[in-house]
């Protein structure tokens, strides 16, 4: 459904001289299937967020293409929705107004879009907070709003940029659990960027392990934990420890050769 074909990207010096550009991503090729949760895992600076922005159509690739159902992505699409790292809510809008924002951009009537927004606010567990403003909510609640906003257009693929990165450990675990459950219920296809091995393993069907400088695919791992047990329980499964060790060595191996 979502295909990445040999994506290259470099960031150049001022003036954009391609020859002097430092390569950030090199030859990224992989597919995401319908209903799958795929993590992009790597150290900071490996280009994983850049890759996500290319998929979202916010950045052009230097070479290669992103295809959605066979069509190349050239600009942001309505069926690829993004959940940002720093919550990124509009601070002057209430929860319901933030969640319905994408539908408002589509020109949907207020009552209709707010009814849909309420449904997703329920799904992310924020019933009763519709009228609150972002500054009245905790970090975890704000990111639930961000998630609801990402889901409200029923996107083909949900793109998430370190969605749980800015939260404290306890909040993060609860949110991961809920996120996992919601994705399974809605059968959402997700591409998730993270630097946490643990998060990648407990949430995703497949983990794309990215090496650093330039970012290239080291290996694609299929932990197969996410569908069987909850994110909390997955941490206790023996398979988890083995998988985590394997991925950690992959990441470390990359760093020593770089």
């Amino acid at each position, binding site marked *: 459904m979502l295909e990445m074909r040999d994506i290259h990207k470099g960031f150049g010096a001022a003036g954009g001289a391609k020859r002097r550009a430092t390569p950030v991503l090199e030859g990224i090729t992989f597919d995401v299937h319908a209903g799958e949760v795929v993590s992009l895992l790597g150290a900071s600076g490996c280009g994983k967020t850049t890759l996500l922005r290319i998929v*979202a159509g*916010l950045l052009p690739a230097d070479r290669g293409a992103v295809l959605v159902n066979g069509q190349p992505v050239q*600009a*942001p*699409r*309505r069926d690829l*929705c*993004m959940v*940002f790292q*720093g919550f*990124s809510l*509009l*601070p*002057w809008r209430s929860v319901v107004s933030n969640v319905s*924002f*994408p539908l*408002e*951009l589509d020109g949907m009537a207020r009552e209709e879009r707010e009814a849909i927004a309420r449904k997703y606010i329920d799904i992310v567990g924020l019933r009763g907070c519709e009228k609150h*403003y*972002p*500054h*009245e909510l905790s970090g975890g609640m704000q990111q639930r709003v961000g998630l609801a906003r990402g889901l409200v*257009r029923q996107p083909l693929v949900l793109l998430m940029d370190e969605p749980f990165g800015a939260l404290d450990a306890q909040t993060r675990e609860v949110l991961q659990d809920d996120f996992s459950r919601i994705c399974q219920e809605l059968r959402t296809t997700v591409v998730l960027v993270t630097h946490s091995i643990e998060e990648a393993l407990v949430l995703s069907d497949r983990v794309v392990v990215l090496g650093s400088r330039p970012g290239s695919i080291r290996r694609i791992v299929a932990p197969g934990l996410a569908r069987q047990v909850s994110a909390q329980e997955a941490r206790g499964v023996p398979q988890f420890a083995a998988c985590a060790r394997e991925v950690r060595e992959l990441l470390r191996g990359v760093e020593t050769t770089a």
Partner: protein
Amino acid sequence: MSEAVATKTRETAAESAAPARAHRRALAEWLKAHPNVVRIGAVLLFFLWWEWAARDANPLFMTYPSAIWKAALEMTESGQLVEALRQSAGPFVIGLALSIVLGILIGVLIGSFWILEYTTELFLAALYATPRVALVPLIILWAGLGTAGKVSIIVSLAVFPVIVNTYAGIKDVRGSLIDIGRAYCATETQIFLKIILPAAIPYIMAGIRLAVGLGIIGLVVAEFFTAVQGLGGLIVTFSNNFATAKLFVPVIVIGVLGAGLTQLVTLLERRFSRWRLSERERQ
């Protein structure tokens, strides 16, 4: 015998000193918790002192509150004060409204298009730094002594804080907020109307608050230098006639109006910037 009495008195003195001290502390606490009482008290004290100190001064040079009060009643009864207020209100309202509309428009244009930003930057900085009062004679030459001249003088002062603040507000919108719009396929118009403009509103309101104060200065200056009219006109007339008590009436009216209007805009500003204040508190 006398010794015993002395001891007794000392004891009662010590007994009553403790509650007195507690009393004073309680009073201080109460005053600290009620700033308005202290504020109003200070103003009353000031007027009392003024009344007492200026009673015997030469009425040509100085006056005192009860004389000003009498003059104010007289001027209200004769309709002079209301007439002056009416004359001042027109140019002030038009001038302030024009300053706000033009200021926001120019600020938005400069903030949105780099070519306008680069070309106007130096002119704006120079105009902002020049005392605009120096340009009053020139403005009168162009716009005349009537309402147009007065409005022009007010705008020449009050438009700048609106321009500068609107421009700063638009420039200061976080890139991450604009990214939300881009990621969700907003058009450029939608990004401007639904993200950039609301994010800039607290800045614009602060600019309007400054514009109110400058607009009042502009009004008085205009009424001094153009057709002598309105509250500023009253000041000129009375000072020429050495009617010092009457002179203070328009001065106080202008002061109260200025403070009241600024307070009103501050309230509006708070209403629009609540999200921003609490956002800052969190950081």
